[in-house]
């Protein structure tokens, strides 16, 4: 079947489905009708869409941690702790890395080893191996909406299992869960597989069930210029909408310059809504702001500084939710205590700033316009390459380096674009590679980087990029040369 941005027919969907449910024995327990009944019993306060809508209407920013361990009971204990002690507003189940690569037999090893070792040997919760029954047990043990968070290029079986278990949100997308997470999965393949995941949500919607979908905004989490991540978010939003998704949360990973961060969220909402309108999709749109996704400082107090700065930016931007890091970030998967600590620091910050927004200034307005203009250059070219089909255009755009994610592991990514911070810490394009921008934008980005170079008394170069990658972990935003 050829990739096209067109809603899968029910027949096409069901045909693929047969194969999907056979990928691992637990697939056989998923029954669409029965699952729909189950999902209809999810109360409002445990439904992701409802909780997000309420937060959006009240202008509140919700806090959501990441968390997942190998064994079900330990996983439930962990999530309950984050709910009760941490005060999380939304809960995750972070899926382990073997599942993300569909290596379910390695998960079995991980589960067994974890039992033996008495601690989790997996970096997440292997939901597919456990299947619907156990995943429902997780859902039923909790009092908050539950979402799968992962990084799975082909998450069709995973999506079937988690939604059938009452988990009312799924993170990911054909670009955002491939390029940063895989090496040799073609964009065509992952887009096709995520059409399936989106279609599944669309089919539930047709049955009157509301499920939220969230493209993964931060991508590699490392100096991604806002216009590049916004372009990807909007493309994934459009692809999901075509498959019948109605409730979307678009995401963005903190870059560190407050004005740029706030501008990125505002530009994202405004521009996504314009595109949805243009294409006639009726979407309930919310946003997610990721606290700093790059390398963290190992010192826990310093980590709190990073966490709270991100929370403040999320609040001032008016994001609907914020994804929380922990004081253990630089070292390893957090204990439940460290995870709760991250949530508490985040919520305190959000509460202190509740209702406060960064007011519109010339600087903020200019930055919003710049991000929108850059994003438009990219999306226009994607559409052109696809002759109007954004799915086809996306495949071609990665081939051409029009879409290009810095530091991504995928061999389907050109890796020619290079970002660096300007003198105010905002992330700019150092090398455009084949990312298409008009001359004005190119000159402006260059000018800003030259300003920094001058201030630092060195040339604009790859060394700046390297320095910027290490900077936050070393306690500063901008990687200036040592004095």
């Amino acid at each position, binding site marked *: 079947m050829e990739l096209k941005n067109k809603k899968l027919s029910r027949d096409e969907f069901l045909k693929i489905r047969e194969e999907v449910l056979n990928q691992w024995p637990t697939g056989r327990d998923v029954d669409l009708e029965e699952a729909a009944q189950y999902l209809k019993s999810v109360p409002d306060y445990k439904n992701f869409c409802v909780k997000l809508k309420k937060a959006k209407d009240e202008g509140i920013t919700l806090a959501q941690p990441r968390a997942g361990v190998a064994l079900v009971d330990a996983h439930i204990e962990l999530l309950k702790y984050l709910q009760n002690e941490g005060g999380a507003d939304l809960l995750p189940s972070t899926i382990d890395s073997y599942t993300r690569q569909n290596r379910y037999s390695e998960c079995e090893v991980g589960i067994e080893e974890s039992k033996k070792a008495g*601690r989790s040997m997996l970096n997440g919760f292997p939901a597919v191996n456990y299947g619907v029954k156990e995943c429902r047990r997780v859902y039923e043990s909790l009092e908050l909406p539950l979402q799968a968070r992962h990084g799975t290029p082909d998450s069709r079986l995973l999506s079937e299992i988690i939604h059938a278990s009452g988990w009312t949100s799924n993170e990911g997308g054909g670009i955002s869960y491939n390029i940063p997470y895989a090496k040799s999965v073609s964009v065509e393949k992952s887009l096709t597989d995520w059409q399936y995941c989106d279609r599944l949500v669309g089919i539930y919607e047709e049955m009157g069930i509301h499920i939220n979908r969230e493209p993964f905004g931060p991508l590699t989490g490392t100096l991604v210029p806002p216009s590049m991540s916004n372009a990807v978010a909007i493309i994934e939003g459009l692809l999901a909408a075509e498959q019948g998704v109605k409730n979307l949360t678009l995401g963005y990973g903190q870059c560190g310059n407050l004005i740029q961060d706030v501008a990125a969220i505002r530009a994202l909402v405004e521009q996504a809504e314009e595109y949805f309108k243009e294409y006639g999709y009726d979407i309930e749109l919310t946003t997610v702001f990721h606290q700093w996704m790059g390398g963290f400082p190992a010192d826990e107090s310093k980590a709190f500084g990073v966490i709270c700065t991100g929370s403040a930016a999320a609040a001032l931007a008016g994001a609907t939710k914020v994804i929380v890091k922990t004081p253990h970030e630089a070292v390893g998967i957090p204990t439940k205590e*460290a995870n709760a600590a991250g949530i508490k620091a985040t919520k305190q910050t959000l509460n202190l700033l509740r209702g406060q927004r960064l007011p519109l200034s010339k600087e903020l307005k200019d930055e919003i316009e710049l991000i929108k203009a850059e994003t438009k250059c990219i999306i226009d070219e994607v559409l052109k390459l696809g002759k109007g089909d954004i799915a086809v255009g996306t495949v071609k755009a990665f081939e051409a380096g029009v879409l290009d994610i810095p530091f991504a592991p995928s061999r389907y990514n050109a890796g020619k674009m290079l970002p660096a911070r300007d003198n105010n810490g905002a992330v700019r394009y150092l090398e455009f590679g084949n990312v298409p921008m008009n001359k004005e934008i190119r000159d402006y980005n260059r000018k800003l980087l030259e300003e920094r170079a001058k201030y630092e008394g060195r040339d604009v170069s790859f060394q700046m990029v390297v320095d910027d990658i290490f900077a936050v972990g070393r306690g500063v935003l901008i990687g200036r040369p040592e004095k």
Partner: protein
Amino acid sequence: MKKTIVLGVIGADCHAVGNKILEHAFTQAGFNVINIGVLSPQEDFINAAIETNAEAILVSSLYGHGEIDCRGLREKCDEAGLKDILLYVGGNLVVGKQDWNSVEQRFKDMGFNRVYPPGTSPDTAINDLKHDLGVE
């Protein structure tokens, strides 16, 4: 003559940033770097080392499954005839914040010559490698 090393991220691990930095740093330091990238099975490390006649294999594991993924690598190297090849490993090797001494011991027991804690600077490893290979 330039010494050849094999570099890669083991298992189902996709963390690419440190890998790119290490490639850059070791190349700058005068090594011939064969970077097999992320998501690399043990076999790929070994094959690359045999093909290029490498003197050391530098394994990264960031995502926490290092303990499972690295097991048996030394034995497989031995079997493949890579007797006494230097094996370094670094990154966020285990799940969670654990006592470093115990982690180091676990990986030494697996046959790694040097084991590095989270956030080790490339310079540290470059110096060690030069020392272990008797360069400079």
